[in-house]
């Protein structure tokens, strides 16, 4: 799943470790989410959304588009 996590993180000048600390996950998890190798669970997606003050669909794109 494509996402804007890397861009949002870079805008705040956070490292992957910084973001991992804020989300209470490992740096490997952040790296894999950013590169689209791992899709976060719904609770983690909500935490990411709250951290950046955005809705989930503003960060993640499943490629299905708007119906």
């Amino acid at each position: 799943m494509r996402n804007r996590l890397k861009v949002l993180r870079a805008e705040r000048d956070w490292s992957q470790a910084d973001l991992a600390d804020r989300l209470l996950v490992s740096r490997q998890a952040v790296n894999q989410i950013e590169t689209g190798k791992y899709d976060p669970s719904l609770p983690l997606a909500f935490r990411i959304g709250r951290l950046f003050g955005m809705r989930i669909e503003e960060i993640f794109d499943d490629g299905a588009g708007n119906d």
Partner: protein
Amino acid sequence: MERAMTESWRDEARAAETGRRTIWFWSPAFIAIGALAIIGGIQAPIGWIHWSGLICGGALTLWGFIYGTAIYMRTVDEQERDANLWGCYVGMCAYLLLFAITALLDYVGRPIPYAPYVVFFTTMMTVLAVFAWKRFR
């Protein structure tokens, strides 16, 4: 305000990580002390030292495994749990494949020497390889 919040997040995360590391130390420590007690108990002549070594060592080792597992399951993140799931699943498939091959060869009258360590290490290496791939790729 944001700076203060950032430091708070970092402190909280570092404190949690330090706590996890401290706790992780005790699980292997319990297992090691328990194993030493078991070995001592086995080598001692039959008597109270023998039995207390076996019982106390067994209990300590079991507690170390239970304690370590509980801490691991509480502190692991979802991506690592996913990697664990895949590692264990593929490892189980490898074990079943080994079992099917040996059973089939035995059935057709071409039995191979039973090598429990080969089965064990093949299974464990498969689990570790898949876990590492899913976790760190």
